């Protein structure tokens, strides 16, 4: 047994007892493509997106719904993919950051994020882009206040948010909605 007060990283008592875990067949649509993939009961949406579909754009910043960088659009609503169980996404339509723009042609949001210097370490950017895309889809003429409220669920430690807000505003004027 590790001594009292040891860091959680050196603890060895977290091995869960062996339990029977069902596998499920998850059928859903991601970035306009249909998938049928076998998942474990305890897989979260983010685990399936990253590890089974290979879509590494969605990041796990905290795993507790506190940072927002794992945000994806599910059936038209913004959700934290670290909180949604994979099987809760059955029959749903998901958009990840990979579904915004393409490798040949960037989405206006991606262009303005680059031009504004809105990305520093980059870790919040998937959540910010997905959130911004969702905002432009649902409220294209959002005011600056509404933009700030829209991104209030994604934490950024680098930029102070000003360049991100500017990038979204710049994209608004570029996008013909």
């Amino acid at each position, binding site marked *: 047994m590790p001594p009292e007060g040891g860091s959680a990283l050196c603890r060895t008592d977290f091995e869960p007892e062996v339990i029977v875990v069902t596998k499920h067949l998850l059928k859903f649509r991601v970035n306009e493509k249909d998938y049928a993939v076998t998942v474990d009961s305890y897989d979260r949406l983010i685990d399936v997106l990253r590890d089974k579909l290979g879509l590494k754009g969605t990041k796990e910043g905290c795993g507790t719904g506190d940072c927002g960088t794992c945000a994806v659009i599910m059936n038209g609503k913004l959700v934290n993919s670290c*909180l949604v169980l994979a099987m809760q996404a059955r029959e749903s339509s998901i958009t990840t950051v990979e579904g915004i723009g393409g490798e040949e042609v960037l989405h206006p949001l991606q262009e303005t994020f680059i031009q504004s210097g809105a990305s520093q370490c980059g870790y919040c950017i998937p959540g910010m882009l997905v959130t911004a895309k969702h905002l432009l889809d649902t409220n294209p003429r959002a005011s600056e206040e509404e933009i700030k409220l829209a991104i209030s669920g994604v934490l950024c430690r680098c930029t102070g948010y000003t360049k991100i807000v500017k990038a979204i505003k710049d994209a608004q004027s570029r996008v013909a909605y």
Partner: protein
Amino acid sequence: MKINNHGGYVEKQMKFDLYIPENFEALLKYLAANGKDAVFVAGGSDLMPRIKRRLVKPKLLVDLSSLRELDYVKQEDGCIRIGALATISELSESTVLSRQYEAFRQVAARYGGPAIRNIATIGGNVAAAASSEDLIPVLLALDATIHTTSARGTQARPLREFLVGKRRTSLSPDELITEISFRALNGNSWCTFEKVGRRNSLIIALVSLAVCMEIESDIMKVNDIRVAFNRFRGRIPERAIGLETALRGRSLNEETIAEGVRVLDSELALTSDYRASSEYRVEAAKACLRKAVVHCAEQISSLK
């Protein structure tokens, strides 16, 4: 071995089994047989972080997300009835919850972020039975009733009896919360919510409270008042009955409000923790009470 609430990062994923009910009836049958081991997951915004932090280690989760018949907000026979799966977003956008139920929109404005609000449910708030669940003070102030169903039938219990202790309710293992209801407010009433936290978003309440008040606004007489705090004398949400008694039937003015604040001061028993001291929480609670009561009175006057 002690581990603090936000324990160290643990690499291994928690493993659990998952039951996905085909329909409501199948779920009730399943619970009658397996309720003891089952942990419900609706939105997951409370449960999943707790699993991640190893605060709970469930063996079996039961997914409620497909029971769409539990997602509604309606007014019927003078009662507002809300299905357990209604989300914070849906409550804040509901036209059934008119202006007077401002508390629901105020809760939403400070509740996590947009993505959390889209999955967090009212049933989940009630089942979590913790002072972090912002809807609970609002529902206590509205004197809400919790409706549950099991294979044995249905039950209706007042929320204040339903909450038994910190993260403990009187739910049996085979029981499911299906609906939360409360009497509709009349034309002289308003329900408001205040929250103090270190940030505007993505933050737990240090102090939160809901006030539900009925006033005869021409003479500023308090016909009825209900006040609930996220923490009052312990670590769960409670109604401040002594405070309510001090204000009920009185004329609302500077003097009576100040008296209410004094009564509150004498009744609050808040503890310090790593988030805030008890002194801070008490001062915040008093300020929030004053603000909420004044706001309610102003809004009720504007209803005329």
